[in-house]
């Protein structure tokens, strides 16, 4: 379980503190696919970084299974950043196995697990390719596999598909959904795209612009995989859009 208790965060921005997150409180149950939806620059990324332990809170606390995030404890978090950030000197497999390497898993076992994940993400046969040899969409798949391989209790995704073209984006959304169905994780997925939010989330949390506060918190109970032109989908989209403007 993941809990946010009155989280505040402000940055020092020359002319006094700049509040980014204001009194954010939320409880996330295991296996939920949360989509954080909000305008660009509203503090969504900061919230993810706080959850991962990459940034401290200014006030309030984040509890993962009752304990605050601590990078040194290797609490099995997956983080997919906006850019795939693959290391160019590592081939795709070694990029995926980074987390296992850090944990000292033997090479054969690492590669077996990576091969399996790459297969699930449609990258079979590309194991020994280097990042510069594959497309943008493939790089993002590798970044997802790299986060997934440590069997994270929470998977944090920071607008991972924002730089992709519509088609690639759609196929990645589908594959992520697929992967999630097979290996359920608690996911927090940040986006500013309403359609994407409804397509993949089981719960949508709408944030206001900076400083971020919760505007709306709703469950999406449409069956997966979702059809973006179905009546229910469109109705929900209209409703949310109404709330957003």
């Amino acid at each position, binding site marked *: 379980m993941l809990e946010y208790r009155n989280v505040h965060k402000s940055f020092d921005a020359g002319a006094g503190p700049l509040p980014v997150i204001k009194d954010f409180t939320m409880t996330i149950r295991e296996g939920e696919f949360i989509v954080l939806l909000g305008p660009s620059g509203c503090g969504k990324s900061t919230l993810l970084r706080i959850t991962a332990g990459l940034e401290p809170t200014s006030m309030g606390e984040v509890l993962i299974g009752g304990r605050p995030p601590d*990078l040194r404890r290797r*609490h099995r978090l997956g983080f997919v950043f906006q850019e795939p*950030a693959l290391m160019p000197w590592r081939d795709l497999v070694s990029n995926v196995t*980074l987390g296992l*390497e*850090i944990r000292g898993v033997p090479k054969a076992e690492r590669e077996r697990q990576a091969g399996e994940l790459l297969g699930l993400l449609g990258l079979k046969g590309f194991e020994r390719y280097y990042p510069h040899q594959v497309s943008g969409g493939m790089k993002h798949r590798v970044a997802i596999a790299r986060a997934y391989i440590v069997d994270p209790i929470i998977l944090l995704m920071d607008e991972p598909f924002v730089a992709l073209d519509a088609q690639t984006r759609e196929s990645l959304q589908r594959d992520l959904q697929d992967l999630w169905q097979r290996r359920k994780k608690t996911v927090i997925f940040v986006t500013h795209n309403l359609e994407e939010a409804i397509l993949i989330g089981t719960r949508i949390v709408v944030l206001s612009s900076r400083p971020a506060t919760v505007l709306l918190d709703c469950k999406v109970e449409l069956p997966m995989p979702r059809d973006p032109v179905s009546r229910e989908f469109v109705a929900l989209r209209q409703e949310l859009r109404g709330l957003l403007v």
Partner: protein
Amino acid sequence: MAKMREAEPVVEIGEMTAAVSRERVQKLSRDRRRVIGFNSLSLLLFVLLWEGSSRLLHSVFFPGPLVVSRTFVVLLVEGDIQGYTLPYHAYVSLYRVLLGFGAACLTAIPLGIILGLWRPVYFGTRVVSEPLRFIPPLAWIPMAILFFSGLGRYVFLIWVGVFFPLFILTMNGVSTASPTFVDVARVLGASRSFIALRIIIPNALPQIVGAMRAVMSPAWMCIVAAEMVAAELVGLGQLINNYATLLRMDIVIVGMISIGILGLLLNEAFMAVERTLFRYRQEVKV
């Protein structure tokens, strides 16, 4: 209703990349031929310009390429007055350069890596390192003459000239590592040493090797200067110096050209190493 276009044949992605790389190879060889062509042309132009201006000047102190190439052959085969051939001079200088360069690499690169990881140490020692950095290597010659002799003197002078640029470039390469790479590793639970050894250093490696290549030119500058002041018989700098006093400008020019050619060869060798080691960087540019 408009007739639908027939579906394109499905191509395996693997095949597609193969086709793309075939095309790329063809394009590369075409570019390569063009580069060689242009270089031959500019070399020819340079030689013509040189010959023309030497004829125009008509001075015994400015021999043209014809005279110089004759001298070149003589030096190559028979050697100078003392009987040392040009390859021997070149070998001696190259040996000295590589020793000094090696000494500089062994000291400047580790130090640059350490201070790149620990910037506060660098900022805390700047008052010492910055003034030292600005002392030209040639200003160290008196000290070198007093405290070193023979090979040690040359190694020291080259080291002095190469150490600082190499150190600064290495440190910058290390300290500009992509923050996202570091975050990726941190979230996965990497220790500081893992991040330093497996993320930051490999990431900086292309810049470090590039820096090694870049400092070859100050290394040559130092060896020639050092050889000129030392009372030795061999070395390209010495060859230039000795024959300058005899006003044998053809031999002086042969020495100059030899340095240039050696520099070019070393540079090309380094670039070849970089191309194979960092293929991932190269192909991005193509």
